[in-house]
């Protein structure tokens, strides 16, 4: 299992070793565009029911190929696509590299997001399209006593752990920032919750033997930039975080191997932190004795070092720091903007909440635009990093326009704010959601 330095270097130089296909092209290459996968092959790869997916309702048929996202100022129309391998109906935000959003109704069906509708976000367009788990190796190297090159079988020999955790894009809900900001113009579906199975990063690092003086651990996946001198996508965690026993290398998601677009065969799981750290197709772990200065860790994905990452548009002289932990959010999933509710009728409101990097303490609901609040009943606790379902019944007292609101308070006492935050990257939105309805 312990490889000598020379073999390890080979892995560094050929990160695409077992890979023989790529998405995208390099500038100047002859353009040979791939055809889309056949429906039959997509069906073959669609998630077969595992323990968690058995609870899912059958997939809805999306007759309408266009979804309207109520983004202020627009554009508000996006196609619903079924053209991506191992994936069902998703909102198409960008074809290449793929940005695919989970349709919001999926979150009403279960706290577990099915693999075939789990959102997708890639930064770089050269994505391996063929991955052989038998020839896959992950390198562990750098400031360690022994360089490792581990097969998936080697990894599976470590103690197996499971964890339910939310993966949320830093820019989830960016499309609702006002003034609007450039980037992936997501509605609220750049998030998902899954049961991850794999091994502790700590156990793998211990096998390599972290040397004294290590400060960070850097993670790299098999994706590559089209322009060869563009920064490769890598992220780093502080050494103590990497060794906290919760950060995982996952080879299964909801009881199945990961869809390729969610990082097959191996993905870093950083519970409670934004998805930017959850490196996909992870094949290189480098222990550093100096802080990482690479673009994606130091420069990209930074937020104002202010409460709630909130600044005024145009504000200058702001210190920016890398984004890190998530913050509480909650959503109504069974009542949509513009729905009509019946006056005087007992009405069910239901949804999901999460605490960020701690659990859900309480969820409060208002059916009168925030004048009064009532506590919702909470569903099963799948762990502090999971979505938690909430529900309650209420009776709309009078006819007219009304605003429904839902507010999560985390188990560390952090509540969602009344007013939205703003920053130039559109990160960390967690304002109390408002759903306008008509009572008739």
């Amino acid at each position, binding site marked *: 299992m312990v490889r000598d330095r020379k073999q390890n270097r080979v892995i560094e130089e050929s990160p695409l070793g077992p890979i023989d296909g790529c998405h995208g092209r390099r500038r100047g290459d002859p353009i040979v565009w791939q055809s889309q*996968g056949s429906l039959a092959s997509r069906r073959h790869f669609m998630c077969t029911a595992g323990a968690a997916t058995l*609870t899912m*309702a059958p997939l809805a048929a999306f007759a309408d190929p266009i979804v309207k996202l109520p983004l202020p100022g627009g*554009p508000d129309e996006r196609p619903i696509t079924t053209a991506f391998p191992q994936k069902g109906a998703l909102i198409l935000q960008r074809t290449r590299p793929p940005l695919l959003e989970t349709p919001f109704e999926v979150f009403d069906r279960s*706290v577990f997001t099915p693999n075939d509708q789990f959102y997708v976000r890639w930064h770089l367009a050269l994505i391996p399209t063929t*991955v052989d788990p038998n020839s896959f190796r992950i390198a562990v190297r750098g400031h360690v006593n022994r360089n490792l090159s581990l097969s998936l079988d080697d990894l599976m020999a470590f103690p197996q752990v499971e964890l339910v955790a939310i993966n949320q894009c830093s820019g989830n809900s960016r499309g609702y920032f006002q003034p609007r900001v*450039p980037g992936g113009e997501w509605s609220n579906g750049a998030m998902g919750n899954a049961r991850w199975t794999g091994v502790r990063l700590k156990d793998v690092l211990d096998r390599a033997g972290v040397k004294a003086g290590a400060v960070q651990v850097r993670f790299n996946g098999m994706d590559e930039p089209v322009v060869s001198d563009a*920064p490769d996508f890598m992220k780093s965690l502080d050494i103590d975080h990497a060794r906290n026993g919760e950060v995982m290398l996952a080879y299964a998601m909801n009881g199945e*191997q990961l869809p390729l677009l969610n990082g097959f065969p191996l993905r870093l799981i950083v519970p409670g932190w934004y998805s930017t750290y959850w490196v996909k197709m992870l094949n290189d772990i480098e222990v550093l004795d100096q802080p990482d200065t690479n673009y994606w860790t130091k420069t990209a994905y930074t937020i104002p070092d202010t409460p709630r990452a909130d600044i005024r548009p145009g504000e200058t002289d702001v210190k920016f720091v890398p984004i890190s932990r998530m913050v509480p959010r909650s959503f109504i999933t069974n009542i949509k903007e513009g729905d009509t509710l019946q006056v005087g009728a007992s009405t*069910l409101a239901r949804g999901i909440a999460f605490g960020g990097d701690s659990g859900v303490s309480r969820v409060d609901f208002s059916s009168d635009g925030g004048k009064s609040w009532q506590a919702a009943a909470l569903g099963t606790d799948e762990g502090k990093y999971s979505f938690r379902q909430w529900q309650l019944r209420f009776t709309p007292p009078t006819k007219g326009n009304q605003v429904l609101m839902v507010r999560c308070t985390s188990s560390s006492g952090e509540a969602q704010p009344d007013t939205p935050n703003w920053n130039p990257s559109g990160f960390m939105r967690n304002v109390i959601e408002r759903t306008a309805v008509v009572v008739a």
Partner: protein
Amino acid sequence: MTRALLPIALVVGVAFAPVCARAESQLSLKSVSVDLPPGDDMFPNGPGADAINNNCLACHSADMVLNQPALPMTQWHAEVDKMRTAYKAPIDPKDVDGILDYLFSIKGEK
């Protein structure tokens, strides 16, 4: 059906603690080979369309740009600059003005 969701989730939840070591899984990972949609649609016609088609589509599909909100010219300038400096986009300098003309014509905050 919808009211049954919480009780069903409860049954599943009992079976798994949040983090727990379990018996070795029977999971056997299978080789995957897929095709991804090419995303090679060109930008709609407009002033500077040739410049944006020639310089921007190597790294990303056009829909990313077409889904952006209207932004001020200074911000479009910053975006193109970020593509050139941070992401090393090999944009021909003589095409920068054409790209900006196009972006502002379709997505300019006027």
